[in-house]
């Protein structure tokens, strides 16, 4: 083997297609070829730092979906390295180039959607807000009711208050007299009960008073009758005395004095 053959077939030897002993024999005899071989072997070890951009370029060029290997970004968000990578990709990919163009155009066009033409009636309503009562209950209620949680919580509180109200109601209202069973309201029933009780009290007082008056009348009538009887008795007694004194004898006077000593029963049964 000469030096020309050695240089031309180095690659096939490195791929393992040519046997080793020819090469080794020539390198032992030729110093220049041995030096070239050593230089090749040393260059397989990395002596310079790896170029990331170069790596990415190679990957982007050789991968099946280059658009997915790179994330298109705004210029302001890119580092210088990413900017170069993106520019390289956009140079090679028409789809991404179109996409970036549309994206850049959107930056100018989207602000056109910022404002909408408002009907004059709405403007008048908005201006009238200055004049309306800021604490309008109807409006506050409406805006609160629109909040989903508020309507649920309000319904819950209402149910709770109703339940507590029923639980605390006194029993006598539900075991009330038949007057309540007619379906009238509790307040009306209470008013009627109170009225009836008052009338009942008045009636009983009146009855008591009448009774006492009647009793007093009866007693006074009795007293009058009694006094009348006493007066009659005394007049009869006086009349007898007068009569007896006119027809008076000594015997008769003793008899009359005995008679006067004995108690006489009057017509009403009382003894003097």
């Amino acid at each position, binding site marked *: 083997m000469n030096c020309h053959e050695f240089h031309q077939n180095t690659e096939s030897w490195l791929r393992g297609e040519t046997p080793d002993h020819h090469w080794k024999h020539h390198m032992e005899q030729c110093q220049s070829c041995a030096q070239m071989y050593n230089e090749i072997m040393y260059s397989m070890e990395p002596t310079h730092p790896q170029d990331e951009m170069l790596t990415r370029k190679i990957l982007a060029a050789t991968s099946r979906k280059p658009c997915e290997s790179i994330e298109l970004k*705004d210029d302001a*968000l890119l580092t210088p390295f990413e900017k170069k990578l993106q520019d390289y990709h956009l140079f090679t990919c028409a789809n991404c180039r179109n996409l970036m163009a549309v994206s850049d*155009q*959107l930056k*100018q066009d989207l602000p056109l959607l*910022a*404002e909408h033409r*408002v009907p004059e009636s*709405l403007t008048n309503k908005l201006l009238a807000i200055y004049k309306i009562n800021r604490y309008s209950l109807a409006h506050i209620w409406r805006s609160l009711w629109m909040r989903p949680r508020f309507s649920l919580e309000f319904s819950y509180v209402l149910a709770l208050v109703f339940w507590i109200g029923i639980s605390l109601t006194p029993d006598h209202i539900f075991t009330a007299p038949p007057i309540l069973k007619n379906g009238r309201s509790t307040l009306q029933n209470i008013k009627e009960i109170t009225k009836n009780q008052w009338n009942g009290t008045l009636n009983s007082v009146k009855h008591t008073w009448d009774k006492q008056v009647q009793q007093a009348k009866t007693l006074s009538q009795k007293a009058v009758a009694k006094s009348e009887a006493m007066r009659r008795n005394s007049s009869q007694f006086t009349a007898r005395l007068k009569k007896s004194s006119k027809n008076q004898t000594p015997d008769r006077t003793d008899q009359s004095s005995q008679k006067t000593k004995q108690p006489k029963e009057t017509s009403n049964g009382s003894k003097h």
Partner: protein
Amino acid sequence: MTSDEALIQKCKRGDHTAWEELVRMYQGRVFAMALQYLHNPDDASEITQDVFLKVYQQLKSFNGEYFTAWILFITRNKAIDRLRWRKQRSETQPISNEEPEFIDSRPDPAQEWETREKQGLLYRALKKMAPAKRDLLMLKEIQGLKFKEIAAMLGLPLGTVKSRSNQARLELARAVIEINPDYAQTKVVGK
């Protein structure tokens, strides 16, 4: 003090003219945002009224710097509440399929017609998107809020908002390309 802050200070003092100016300045944006959530002009009108009533009631206690973000935050919350209420009642509100009439101050009828076409196309593409991504697009790209404001509003980290906003715009771009592949070629003279 910015013009918005001066206007708000006047409103706090009870200046009716300032309130009118404030209403006319923001009613379009509030109505547009409510409509983009609810797709029903009647509901959007009610939400707009509720938003301005709440703003009027709480204006005296407002001492922040970001009035636009605040009013849009209220709009968003009220619209979402209405959507939940609707869903809870299982009401099928008549969703308007008509494309809304956006404000356009261009005098040229041809340009106005082109703009309306484009706005209609964007509106249809937005309807196809997922609610979370549409939300982000509405706040960032349409209403022009800052990332910081959006992050505070949605309760998300700043980095997440930035990356999701970008993804949302790309998704919208795909939806637009589906409807009209030549979208990027047609241009509208911007505001």
